[in-house]
């Protein structure tokens, strides 16, 4: 119960900070603090009556809530798909990597450091160019490189683009954490008992690294939401950030950000709750 209260408070504070930030351009434009507070108040009232909010679509006023659901779920599919795939690939490859000898692992880590420093825009550009190149050479169009309009939906390319860098981040982090964990005594004990290395890796070590990975995944997500905006604009995808970018009003930004934040918040709250329960139980034992 105490945890729930804390999480609720955190959610409210997140909303509050989003609303406060969304008023900032007003402050900068008018150089006047009272205008800023007026704006914040206006946004706040707007947020409370979200169902009445309207936006301009090709010159026509349309209700916001009616139109937002589809692109919203589309964006969420891309984002979560990318996150999930990146995570799974990284986990499986980590297990594979940890079975390799030491010098190969060192090489892999160096390569990962290099890949980590690729700017995201470069990755997107290379993916885009790669598809075009393959098409030119072989005539096989792997997937559309850009969505044509609101009705047209592409999944493969944006998910690939979004997952590549988080995959590298996860992979490197997992290798580092697992290697640290492998040096601990319980691993040696279990290996000495004759357990298979892979078994120890999957069932004991992974469970112990999962908490650290969870905290790390927060910052990966932080980075992915920013990337979502870029991907949606580059590939002309009509997702939620499309609405955000094309109607750049404070109310719109606040509403879209709040919409984006809610599912993440719930998922993190759920995981945190599980971890707390899990660790408490182990303490009691």
């Amino acid at each position: 119960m105490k945890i729930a209260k804390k999480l609720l408070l955190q959610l409210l504070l997140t909303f509050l900070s989003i609303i406060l930030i969304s008023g900032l351009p007003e402050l900068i434009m008018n150089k006047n603090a009272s205008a800023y507070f007026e704006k914040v108040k206006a946004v706040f009232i707007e947020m409370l009556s979200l169902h009445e909010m309207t936006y301009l679509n090709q010159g026509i006023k349309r209700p916001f809530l009616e139109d937002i659901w589809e692109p919203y779920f589309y964006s969420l599919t891309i984002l979560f798909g990318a996150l999930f795939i990146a995570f799974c690939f990284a986990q499986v490859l980590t297990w594979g990597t940890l079975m390799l000898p030491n010098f190969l692992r060192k090489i892999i880590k160096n390569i990962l450091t290099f890949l980590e420093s690729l700017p995201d825009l470069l990755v997107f550009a290379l993916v885009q160019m790669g598809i075009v190149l393959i098409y030119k050479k072989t005539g096989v169009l792997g997937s559309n490189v850009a969505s044509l309009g609101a009705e047209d939906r592409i999944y493969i390319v944006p998910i690939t683009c979004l997952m590549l860098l988080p995959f590298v981040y996860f992979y490197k982090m997992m290798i580092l954490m697992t290697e640290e964990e492998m040096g601990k005594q319980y691993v040696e004990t279990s290996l000495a008992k004759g357990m298979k290395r892979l078994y120890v890796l999957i069932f004991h070590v992974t469970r112990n690294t999962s908490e650290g990975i969870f905290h790390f995944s927060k910052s990966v997500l932080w980075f992915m939401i920013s990337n979502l905006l870029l991907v949606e604009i580059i590939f002309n995808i009509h997702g939620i950030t499309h609405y955000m970018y094309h109607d750049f009003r404070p109310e719109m930004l606040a509403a879209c950000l709040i919409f984006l934040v809610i599912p993440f918040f719930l998922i993190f709250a759920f995981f945190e709750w599980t971890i707390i329960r899990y660790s408490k139980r182990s303490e009691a034992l």
Partner: protein
Amino acid sequence: MASLIFAFFFDSTIRQVQILYDDDMNMIGAAPFNPSLMFPMGTDALGYDTTMKVLQGAKFTLISVIAIGLLRVCTAFLFAIPLAMYTPDRLRKNLEQLLSSFYFVPLTIVAVFILTPVLWEQLRMPGWEEYFLYSYKARIGIEILVLTLLVVPLLGSLIANLIVSSLKEDFIEGAKVLGASKWRVFSKHIMPHVLPKLVIVFCQQCVQVLVIFIHLGYFKLFFGGTDVDYNPYEADPPLSTTNEWSGLIGDYYNLLHANPAIALGPIFMFGICIYAFQLMAEGFQHHLDTRNVMGMKRSKIKQDDFAERARINMKFEFLSKRGDYIDKNFY
């Protein structure tokens, strides 16, 4: 080692800029990296040499990145000191929870949102006058300020955690028992431990700032202001006022399919910089890990290796079959 590479790289970048100012064209001697990487950048649509532009812009970008990185770390550090030293544990944990709400506010989107009115050249209707809301210096100041302040909460709690974790070490207890004041504990015991870690944090922050610059560049918000041409007939594309790198990205990204070399050139430069910062952080980390165990480290690793190999290669056998085993039950 890695930091040396970076220093060399950075130093030579400045030198190239100076050469550029002299109108002296022999850059091949000065460029430390592969010339084949430097020259096929070609020229842009208006006929400017992209290589020159990149070189000219380098100082703005790199200096501002380092400035923002430093400011971020310093501000966050100042913010972290009271949080770690003078706040009771419970309150600090709660505060941390609150600060972590910033995890859900994506920086690029917010930065684009806030900086648009500052950096985008506006149009005053009567008279078709193009103007900026702020002067050149104020624009740079506001951009640095916004990019700094947005991360201070997260970074502050991160650094506070660093300080707290070194506060919990045993020698702090010892110092307190011996009568050290808070200030003494802080300056003599905490600082030497936290300062090297701050260097690593600083490198990571620089990488982050570079990434944000790329994003801002893609949205055509350039460091120091975007020069928008409101000519209704033949508008030039938005121009960077200083030729710095994010401006180059914004200018050239649309040429990606026409001529990839032009578009990718500035992005590659960003990539090299990020890699350099990352290597710097890693090299420094490596130095920290091994500085106290010089010479010993290598033999220790070898020993570990040997033990590992022995364990794997040795066949399992019952101890009782070995000659030196004495079974107590036997007697």
